[in-house]
């Protein structure tokens, strides 16, 4: 009997210790509880509504209850949110979040540029975002910090980059964060120079051909399935199979269309071929409002905006007169970009936001700018929550703060659209991310009282697929800020200025705009050492290229 009892104890101990060991081995240290009760907050359950004095109970990643003075379960962690504001987690309807830029390798040589393989020509509709999404990519926490909890993730690529999937922006491994697969196919007016199709007109012609062949493929496939003895087996094509879903309208086609001309081209393809179009990353859509409304085409407006013109402190009429016609027209043009969202709202066209081209840290500032240019707060919130939820077919699960929905929440200290508001918590499927009252801004080009580093003239050599482009970089430090300008050897007298200079440890990042027929932003990321550096330059949709350089001399006027 005693023996039996001892072994019983032993067994218990054994079991318990096993559990301990498991917990340590998995390294998955969960908080003491995953049940939260948020006390006494303002809740904005959906655009245009607000409830005060609310408590929210979060359990199993979902909103278990909302109401005033909810009873706190014994195992819940209580967070007092007195006077804070709770919104539904934002939904990014179009971006490459979680998909790392491909490392710049030697691109395999294309042996036949006239008839390239589909993949070489950027035709990869069979690719899925879920095959390369990683929650460890730095874009995921960046988007989360900006209040986004779900993203419609587009694979990186060119003409037909693949189909997009919706991911929850949590930090569990990427494949476990897939929320909804196969949201839509994607198309970009993205030719590859030197390979067919090498121009936008080539891309459009190629797309028409693929589309017709996908229709034929589908027909042949169903004929063969019905009467296998009478017809030949159609040769399998993963590309046509993927596009076939677009031709039957089973899946929509997102077309990235920044400029009004691209919007027009997208609408033209749609009216010729008849697919379900979603216009994405629209930056200049005001010209096309009537057509978009007439055909009821869903729109995702880009959150990227051009820099606002510097306004004079006092609007002095004499000052205005000093400006040239060119400057006045340019300002008017910028105003139109900043008023795009407002123009869509006034026209009664609902829209979502695309985060493809915007830096996560600019999102709030840009939404503010849209609001000062006439966009209503409720339309802005709808574009961040309910509209994309509905468009992506996830409005039963997300988009509002409601019992039973995902516990995706953004919590701010003041109303979100208040200029001074700060995001204090983001809940992603019930997981809490807390942000300090004043998050220590990363070194945005300013020094921390240390001596400025890396000042001087440096060489640069950009390796563009075996060809090198060379020039000089001038790094100076004045008024507590780094300033960078460049001179390219092909145009040695044109000073190219850099913006958004930021030094984080040894990583120097900055951007520069160049005009390549249309404005293109170059993004530099350099790993600095005392006498040399190496890094990459990302050039819009063209990919990224390695760059290196050495220290030449102290700053001077060269």
């Amino acid at each position, binding site marked *: 009997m005693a023996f039996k009892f001892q072994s019983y104890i032993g067994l218990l101990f054994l079991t318990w210790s096993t559990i301990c060991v498991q917990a340590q081995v998995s390294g998955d240290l969960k908080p003491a509880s995953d049940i939260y009760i948020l006390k006494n907050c303002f809740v904005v359950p959906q655009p245009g509504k607000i409830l005060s004095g609310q408590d929210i109970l979060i359990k199993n990643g979902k909103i278990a209850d909302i109401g005033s003075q909810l009873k706190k379960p014994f195992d819940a962690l209580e967070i007092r949110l007195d006077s804070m504001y709770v919104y539904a987690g934002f939904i990014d309807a179009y971006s490459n979040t979680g998909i790392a830029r491909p490392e710049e390798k030697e691109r395999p040589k294309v042996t036949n540029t006239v008839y390239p393989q589909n993949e070489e020509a950027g035709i990869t509709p069979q690719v899925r975002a879920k095959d390369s999404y990683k929650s460890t990519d730095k874009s995921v926490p960046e988007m989360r910090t900006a209040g986004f909890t779900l993203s419609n993730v587009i694979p990186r690529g060119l003409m037909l980059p693949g189909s997009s999937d919706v991911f929850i922006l949590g930090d569990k491994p990427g494949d476990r964060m897939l929320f909804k697969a196969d949201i839509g196919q994607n198309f970009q007016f993205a030719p590859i120079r030197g390979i067919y199709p090498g121009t*936008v007109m080539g891309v459009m*012609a190629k797309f028409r051909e693929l589309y017709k062949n996908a229709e034929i493929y589908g027909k042949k496939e169903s004929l063969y399935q019905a009467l296998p003895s009478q017809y030949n087996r159609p040769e399998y094509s993963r590309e046509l199979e993927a596009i076939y879903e677009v031709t039957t309208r089973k899946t929509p086609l997102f077309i990235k269309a920044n400029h009004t001309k691209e919007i027009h081209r997208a609408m033209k393809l749609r009216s010729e071929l008849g697919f379900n179009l979603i216009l994405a990353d629209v930056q200049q859509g005001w*010209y096309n409002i009537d057509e978009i409304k007439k055909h009821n085409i869903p729109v995702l407006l880009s959150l990227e905006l051009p820099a606002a013109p510097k306004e004079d402190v006092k609007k002095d009429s004499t000052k205005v007169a000093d400006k040239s016609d060119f400057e006045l027209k340019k300002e008017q043009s910028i105003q139109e970009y900043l008023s795009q969202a407002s123009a869509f709202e006034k026209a009664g066209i609902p829209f979502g936001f695309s985060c493809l081209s915007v830096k996560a840290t600019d999102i709030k500032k840009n939404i503010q700018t849209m609001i000062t240019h006439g966009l209503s707060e409720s339309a802005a919130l709808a574009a961040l929550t309910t509209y994309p939820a509905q468009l992506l077919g996830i409005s039963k699960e997300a988009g509002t703060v409601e019992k039973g929905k995902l516990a995706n929440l953004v919590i701010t200290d003041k109303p979100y659209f208040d200029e001074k508001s700060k995001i204090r918590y983001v809940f992603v499927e019930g997981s809490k991310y807390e942000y300090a009252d004043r998050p220590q801004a990363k070194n945005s080009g300013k020094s921390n009282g240390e001596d400025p580093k890396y000042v001087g003239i440096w060489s640069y050599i950009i390796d563009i697929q075996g060809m090198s482009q060379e020039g000089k970089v001038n790094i100076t430090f004045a008024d507590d800020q780094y300033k960078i300008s460049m001179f390219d050897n092909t145009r040695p007298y044109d000073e190219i200025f850099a913006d958004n200079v930021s030094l984080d440890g040894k990583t120097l990042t900055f951007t520069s705009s160049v005009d390549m027929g249309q404005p293109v932003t170059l993004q530099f990321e350099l790993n600095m050492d005392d006498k040399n550096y190496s890094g990459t330059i990302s050039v819009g949709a063209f990919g990224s290229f390695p760059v290196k350089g050495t220290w030449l001399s102290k700053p001077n006027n060269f």
Partner: protein
Amino acid sequence: MVRILLIIATFCTTGFLYSQNILIKNGTVLTITDGIKENTDVLILNGKIAQIAKNIINPKNTRVIDASGLFVMPGIIDAHSHIALDAINEFASPVTAEVQVGDVLNPFDIAIYRALAGGVTISHAMHGSANAIGGQCQTIKHRYGVVDPEKLKMEGAPRTIKFALGENPIRVHGEGKNIIPNTRMGMEQTFRDAFAEGKLYMQRWDDFRKGLIKESPEYNLRLETMADIIKGDILIHCHSYRADEILMLMRVLKDYGVKKICFQHVNEGFKVAPELAAYGATASVFSDWWAYKFEVYYSTAYNASILTKNGVTTSINSDDPELIRHLYHEAAKTQRYGGLSDDEALRLITINPAQQLGIDHRVGSIAIGKDGDVVLFKNHPLSIYAIPQMTIVDGVVRFSIQEDPDDVRLEISPTANESSFYEEMHHSEEEDSCLQGFSEWMMEHKSK
């Protein structure tokens, strides 16, 4: 200042102006097809020429323009240009019949307005000459102010396609990629292959539609377009210089029963003018431009006159956003070299290019029922002192030397810098605008 801003604002926001009714009073009307009419009025109603007579009574809601002392002529037509295009050459293949420059129109291009300032109301926006068979071209009306690219297209204009002979395709594909065509023999073979494949493709689809074969052939937009050329649905405009190659292409076309061909540039056209006339081919030439590459050394400023006298329908084109502003001067050069009459010289930039584009029933002369495309000139258009005063397209005043503001750009990019005309025109020096973007492309290509 405020006035200027207002004008700019109206210009920008009105965009597509609807046709007005316009009565042009008391001009010297150069009708082209019906002689010269002094002190005559031209009435444009709903975008069409409604009446040509003396002392027309002004109907209601009609703008009256006093043309006393001015010359009134039909809008000038340029049968070869590359303005208003975002892409010109699909360099990647020697045959790219499937691409259409109509897909990449750029209504914001200031060159459209500059062309209007030279009295040009219609241009033939062409694919470049990098490929033996380049893309399909687009006849556009210079409705500057519209932002919808579709509204630039001349509705109902026949489809046209660019072919190219000689050095350009050989350089791009033969020398550039070491593929056919690498010689003028290879050029002929490239055309013959494309036509043969197009014909086979057409037959295969006909068989399928008739039920003779059960399995649907693959769809091929390139060959589909070749089939349309064989059917005569698309007019060919071929970049050409040397006489031997011009004859070669006519032989190829004859073999496939293709009749409609306009030879562009055609510097050695004067050598084969009777052969061109016999085939029914037409010619669109430069007035006096040559020696910019080897195959254009054997040239003459008498080309247009010789072709005209031999019965070849001839036009003078620009191929250039600067030259397009003074095509009337270019036409006048044929009076110095070859002694063409006023009427013959003016036809080179009006009804003749209209014929080459298949739009002569609509435009190219001042006649009742034709489109209201009219230019008012101070001094005779063939005079060295000629200055266009007003250009009207479909009854809409699109250019007015008196009324327009200085800056009529429709769009200024938020990152734009103020630039001069000179900088804009010369930012990329090219040997020949038909090959725009080539050197840049070559650099990229060689690295691959």
